[in-house]
């Protein structure tokens, strides 16, 4: 713990300013803090990122990378040897399975996408599809950790934490990295948005859809603002006296400042999460108010993501779960696609018309893709697809990503990426690059070595940078 000569901040807090004083924010902003905005390391367009995480592993074959060959091979049986490098799930008697979905051509390039994505079809000219990515793990939590934190072991900083560490954030009254989870927390839990070894300021803060948006942001029932104000005044006096006894103890002032920030957040957040301020037309754009409860719920999170970005939040992760379709892929993926169509196309449309798309990188990705084959469980209608780390589809939009492009390709059945093939770490390096950060320079010294998101370094996937 350091002793410091009194700074302006100490004088402010030691000098009897009451807690909750809003006037402080502009005066404090001039001082360097962990979340003070920092210059990009490399000039780039994107200032914010909205990461749409599709938990469970969406099938590239049934969404953005159709494989007509599978229609010919449908129900062709083969035997996959059980070996020590295969999961039990993926071995034994296997059948190729066709996609039960129809595809339509969309955008100037005529990219083939699932026909259920009617709204999204109108956005394709702003989207860059990437089919060359490979994950490493076929296990949900390890693959999720890998996608979210760069390693398969929980405990390292999430991408949003790295970006916040590198760039700080524009709005000092809000966390820099917010997470909008689905109804349930994903497998692997909160380690998916951890600050890891980075300071706690960079941790992802989950915004809850029910109750107060941030945990304990509101006092228990019966504790009115009036009561809180009385208690705070007394608390302020206690702290002033204590600080006078321990002059120069810098942490004390920092702790007072965090109470100030908490109360500014408490004041600002309800206005941000109140979607009723949006026009009925905007709500409808996102599918909010639809009979499809999942579309409504994801639409709310996507709209909230736009509002947060507008308020200067650096990184927002929106999670949509339910993509683990081992069985009944027609029903399971069908309903997922119906649920995401309006929310994601609404988000892209809205970002574009508000001029935010240029400075906001939107990422859509799951933790891995799915297999062209399946061990059939229940006759011919129940089939789905298993996990596949060798092929997947992700896409980028806005924020300096190419507009209307398809990069990379998978083999003729979608089993493996074969063109512009890159490991996940290169994708991470590319995301950082699009946000103006250089993975090689964005380092943090921990446990005896300089750590970085890509772990061992990686290369920018040039084709994904406009």
């Amino acid at each position, binding site marked *: 713990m350091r002793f410091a000569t009194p700074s302006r901040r100490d004088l402010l807090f030691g000098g009897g300013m009451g807690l909750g004083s809003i006037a402080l924010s502009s005066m404090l902003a001039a001082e360097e803090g962990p979340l003070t905005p920092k210059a990009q390391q490399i000039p780039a367009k994107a200032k914010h990122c909205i990461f749409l995480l599709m938990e469970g592993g969406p099938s590239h074959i049934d969404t953005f990378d159709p494989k007509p060959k599978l229609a010919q091979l449908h129900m062709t049986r083969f035997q996959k040897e059980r070996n020590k490098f295969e999961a*039990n799930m993926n071995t034994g008697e296997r059948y190729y399975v066709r996609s039960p979905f129809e595809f339509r051509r969309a955008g100037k390039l005529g990219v083939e996408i699932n026909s259920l994505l009617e709204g999204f079809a109108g956005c394709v000219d702003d989207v860059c599809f990437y089919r060359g990515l490979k994950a490493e793990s076929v296990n949900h939590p390890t693959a999720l950790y890998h996608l979210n934190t760069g390693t398969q072991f929980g405990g390292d900083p999430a991408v949003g934490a790295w970006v916040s560490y590198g760039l700080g954030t524009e709005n000092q009254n809000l966390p820099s990295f917010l997470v909008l989870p689905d109804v349930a927390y994903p497998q692997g839990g909160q380690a998916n948005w951890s600050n890891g070894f980075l300071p706690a300021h960079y941790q992802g803060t989950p915004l809850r859809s029910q109750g107060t948006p941030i945990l304990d942001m509101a006092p228990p029932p019966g504790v009115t603002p009036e009561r809180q104000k009385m*208690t705070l005044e*007394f608390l302020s006096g206690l702290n002033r006296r204590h600080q006078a006894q321990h002059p120069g103890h810098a942490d004390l002032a920092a702790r007072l400042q965090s109470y100030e920030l908490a109360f500014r957040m408490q004041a600002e957040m309800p206005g941000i999460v109140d979607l009723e301020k949006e026009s009925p037309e905007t709500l409808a754009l996102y599918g909010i108010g639809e009979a499809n409860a999942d579309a409504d719920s994801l639409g709310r999170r996507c709209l909230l993501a736009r509002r947060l970005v507008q308020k200067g939040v650096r990184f927002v992760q929106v999670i949509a779960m339910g993509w683990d379709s081992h069985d009944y892929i027609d029903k399971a993926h069908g309903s997922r696609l119906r649920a995401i169509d309006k929310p994601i196309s609404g988000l892209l449309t809205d970002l574009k018309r508000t001029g935010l798309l240029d400075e906001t990188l939107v990422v859509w990705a799951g933790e891995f893709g799915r297999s062209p084959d399946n061990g059939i469980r229940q006759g011919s209608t129940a089939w789905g697809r298993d996990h596949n780390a060798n092929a997947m589809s992700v896409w980028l939009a806005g924020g300096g990503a190419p507009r209307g492009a398809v990069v990379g390709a998978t083999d003729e059945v979608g089993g493996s990426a074969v063109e512009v093939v890159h490991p996940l770490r290169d994708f991470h390096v590319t995301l950082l690059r699009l946000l103006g950060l250089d993975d090689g320079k964005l380092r943090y010294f921990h446990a005896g070595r300089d750590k970085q998101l890509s772990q061992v370094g990686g290369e920018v996937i040039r084709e994904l940078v406009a």
Partner: protein
Amino acid sequence: MTKLYLLVATVALAQDPFTETVLPSLKRDCQGCHGAALALSGLDLRTRESLLKGGKRGAAVVPGKASESLLLRMIEGVDGLQMPPGGEKQKLSPAVRHAFREWIDAGAPWKAEGPAKWTYAEADLWAFQPLRRFASPMTIDGFIDAKLRERGMAPASKADRRTLIQRVTVDLTGLRATHEEVKAFVADQSPQAWEKLVDRLLASPRYGERWGRHWLDVARYADSGGYSNDFERPNAWRYRDYVIRSFNADKPYDRFVREQIAGDELYPGDAEALIATGFLRGGPWEHTAMSVEAVTRQMFLDDVTHATASTFLGLTLGCARCHDHKFDPLPTRDYYRMQAVFASTEFARPALPFLPSELVQGREAEKKALAATHAKALARMADYRKLAVQNLLKKHGVAREEDLPKGELAQAMNTGAGLEPLQFEEYKLFQKHAQIYKESLDRFAPKAFAVSSGPRDGETDGGPALRYAARAKYVPAGVRILPGGNVQSPAEAVTPGVLSAPEIVGGYRAVDIPETVEGRRSALANWIAHPENPLTARVMVNRVWQYHFGQGLAGDASNFGKMGKKPTHPELLDWLARSFIERGWSVKQLHRQILLSRAYQRGPAPVDAALVAKQDPDNLLLSYFSPRRLEAEALRDNILAAAGELSFDAGGPGTFPQISEDVASQPRHRMGSLAPPYHPSALRRERNRRSVYLFQQRSLIDPFIDVFNGPSLDLACERRVASTVPTQSFTLFNGQFAHDAALALAARAAKESPDGIRRTFELAYARDPEASELTEARNLYARSLAWHRQHPAPKPPPRKPLIHRITSELTGESFSFQQEESESAYEANLHPSEVTPEVRALSDVALALLNANEFSYVY
């Protein structure tokens, strides 16, 4: 002058083109089509053998002849055919192609051969050197004061007695001294008062709870396995209690080390030593039907290798998993040699009767409630099974279950045939819950979370069975160096061994590790826990120093290598380590030595702040005592203690605190389904135990502990940080826990004294309030009382059933279901509606006291 050491080791060079470039490129650019999943053109590029063999077009590589090698011709595109395909855009970069050429011309060694020269500065190898010898008697203060004199800095004078007793009481027990204890110590003018105080605290059972928690941080302890199921480790708590007992009993540290690494082998029949091996299994680990066995086994091996080296030796050996350590003399070969020590280590959960000191009595009600919840989940499963039977009977037109085609029902319950998809989802959900509860019931079973040399009981940590050989036929898997840490690219085989650097650098002899099933870990443990091992005692002494002073003599407690901070007082560190060994590795003697020093008893402010800011801003020279914030567990425990709610029940299965309702009711994904609801322990005395006894679930960290920088539970934590973030203010000022504690504190103060306000100060701060504080507190109390008289507290609303919604993986549609209720009668916390307006008003004063800086900082 810096002396240079030369180490010669036959290991892969860090700058080797193969490990740096060729192998990563083969994996990244080639193996997608020529690897595990596919071998197009019959070509597999995963091993040297398969490269030499080649595919349809012939051998891919001719060692020594790059230009004749098909692999190089392909990546150069010289024959009109280019790999990887995709034209100029996909062509490997010139640097990569050059690396391939160099490598093939060098004979295409899969492992780099030939001696590599390593150069290290002596200063970076300090930890591998033998401990210094000291001719004359020394003291801690002698070392510390000499440095201060050198820098012209005056030490702060001794802290006042009130500060001292709080400092040492928190330090040794994690709890503050009470007002009565402070008064007694201040009044005790005997010269032995401090020594007596230190001895009293070291003898307190609270000591082991505090210092055991420090060790559990380093040992990455948790009560669950992490990852997707995060299954309970129902007997892991016995390791936690073992650690606490060991500290309380002042178990010699060398024995403590031996027990954790090889207790089962070294002390057969000793229950404590068997429980101790739970350390080896402490890391997150899971094996599911979707896991690859070779990968999950490797995860365990990597974890145990890394954990052993960092915990006991203070080395970042994990860095050598993929390549030779870039800074320290830790070649990859050494990493895998040490890993081979654990190649015969298998999980075990043997029966082991409870020790008299293990508290499982008094938990019968909890066990009964858990069994009832389990039975309910089974009953719900049975309901769906009945339904499936009816449907199948109808389908087959038969009347009795036994008339169904053989295996049909089992198959149906596995695949969902016979039930509507959403019915099957609910069936799966209760099946998952039943599985989880069944595992939890084992908390009360006398089994040990342990290991054995060779397979013993097929223990799988909750997951599906692993493919073990029978014990009689068991051969430990051979260990090979895995370049890049990749389990699919094994290279050279290694035999078990210890690290080479301590011998090469400092002359501490390496020992042979037998290649038999048993005895490997014993040999390693004896090598580590040896008085001549230069690392072991230094590392432990430094950890202890760090917890006392807030920073170690060497600043990175688990990194004694080049990149770790160098010791500020290297002679002192060595002298303490020697004296630690000479005093029989007694941790309590070490505490005494440190606590009786003047350095520990200095005041909390520098004599000359300006000089300190310039010369020693981080107080590394200890001219004053650095204040610190209470860690998460200490903050929680002290809040409960002030409120009179802290329970000193010790040991046994972890208990469940009342956590934020919002977090408790948050649905959490478990593989293929949802976790059962979080149920806090029914009794207050169970919920309000010391934090070290709370159930440590990797996927559900107590939000109070988490927000105050608690450890992640997935990784070892060598030192807590104290970052200050706004969510901490929410927790302490708005959270239910703080409000409940403030109310209990107020009720206690009002009961114990006619002057409740004064008593609240005494209980929270162990001191009398100042006159001005008292005036302000009475002022708040009066205003608050007026408010509370006008606003009676409403009764708590009845608990609503917990409805969770989940997306069905079968249909992609959402469905809702009611989570199981707890089967225990819940003893609620004190509620505002149960107390007078006076107590409610006093609780506003109490809440402020708990939030103020004075409560959180120790000086």
